[in-house]
């Protein structure tokens, strides 16, 4: 009789430890996803912070290229508007739009030899392309975090605990193929 009670207590303690540790693991992994989400925001903000400096730097050389200047400024405004939101998709879209506009600006800048000799401009160009890498890496880590979380949600016994705590698998970010390609900077 005594043995049965001891075994029962051990089993109950074991189950409790399992429940607690799985709950904590879900929480840790979810926090990791949220944190990597915030990391993407940081990079997007950094990118939009550089835009006014860039516009200032190129104004003197290509001030009459109104269309692209406006495009970049508008894209930045649109991005700044969506950064505080939780909607990752529109955020990514706005981020890509700004990146696209900046890319065309740099392409046009190729026609201005004086601008290309400007130290300040080159610096900004380098920084902006470095930030593009960082956005890509931050997105990658976001997806890695989601992968870790989903693996826990979809394997046994994590699957049962996920159902118990009502945890649902997370969504991956689509990484556009073009954003991984490092832009060629020619001097």
């Amino acid at each position, binding site marked *: 009789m005594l043995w049965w009670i001891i075994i029962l207590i051990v089993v109950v303690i074991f189950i409790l430890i399992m429940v607690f540790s799985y709950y904590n693991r879900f929480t840790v992994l979810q926090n990791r996803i949220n*944190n*990597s989400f915030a990391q993407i925001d940081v990079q997007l903000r950094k990118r939009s912070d550089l835009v006014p400096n860039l516009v200032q730097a190129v104004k003197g050389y290509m001030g009459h290229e109104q269309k692209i200047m406006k495009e970049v400024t508008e894209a930045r405004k649109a991005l700044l508007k969506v950064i505080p939101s939780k909607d990752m998709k529109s955020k990514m879209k706005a981020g890509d739009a700004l990146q696209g506009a900046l890319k065309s600006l740099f392409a046009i800048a190729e026609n201005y030899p004086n601008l290309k000799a400007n130290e300040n401009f080159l610096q900004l160009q380098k920084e902006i392309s*470095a930030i593009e890498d960082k956005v890509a890496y931050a997105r990658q880590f976001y997806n*890695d975090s989601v992968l870790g979380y989903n693996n826990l949600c979809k394997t046994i016994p994590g699957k049962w605990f996920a159902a118990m705590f009502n945890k649902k698998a997370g969504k991956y970010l689509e990484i556009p193929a073009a954003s991984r390609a490092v832009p060629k900077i020619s001097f």
Partner: protein
Amino acid sequence: MKKISFHDQIARNKRNSFFLVIIVFIVLIVLGYAISFAFSPDYFFFIMILATIISLVYVMITFYNSDKIALASVKAKKADPVLHRELYHAVENMSLASGMPMPKIYIMPGAQINAFATGRNPEHGVICVTEGALNILNKQELEAVVGHEMAHIANYDIRFVTTVAIVVGAVSIFSQLFLRSLWFRGNRRSQGNALFFVIAIVLAILAPIIVKLVQLAISRKREFMADAGSVQFTRYPPGMINALKKIKADHEKLKVPTAVAPMFLSDTTKRKVAVLFQTHPPIDKRIKVLERM
């Protein structure tokens, strides 16, 4: 050739490292058991406690200052955020890709390509690269090398290697104490069992060698693991492969104190020694594994 995923590679290496640690502990227990039978048990117990305390204090001091000691021993200097912009970008990229806090960045003199990571946990992580690595490696290769070091930090390799070093140190201290104590035993030999006495002597001589080999084997496993981690972060195996190829072509070896040699990206010893006695796996083998990812 069969493709292996870097996740599998990391998992396999973790498992292998675990078994290696188990082997070291078994050696330690068997050795202690044999010695305690050879001697009177209570006398042995006293030695064991004393040796453990001494080695623990020693290890704690070195553990908490390991980064400073390592950086000072190679004359490393803090990297400049403006001057070494590329390196800062590479480290920041890898810190984003790994989700690790941004480590401190140091540069050490030397024309060769090499790098190491130190710091007792990710919050105190330090990455140090040689001037040669900055000059010779391109952007992707530098990122891969930094990713390799970041993987060492993420895997808690510094703590792991230190822990193994404690056990290895403890084994050799026990062996030494036992072998030396034989000189003072004289004709009190009747206390212990004669057969166990012989076994204990043999073990005391062999054990430090065995655990040293295990320590080196673990060190090599961790290198494969960090290579796999680097690929996980960069998602670009050719980066690490090309960096290793450049290191291979780079004949001139770096002069560093032997104590910090296992921490480096590639082997720093000049001699040609058997794989069993090296801190790092052969570069060709590392490239071969990377090419399968």
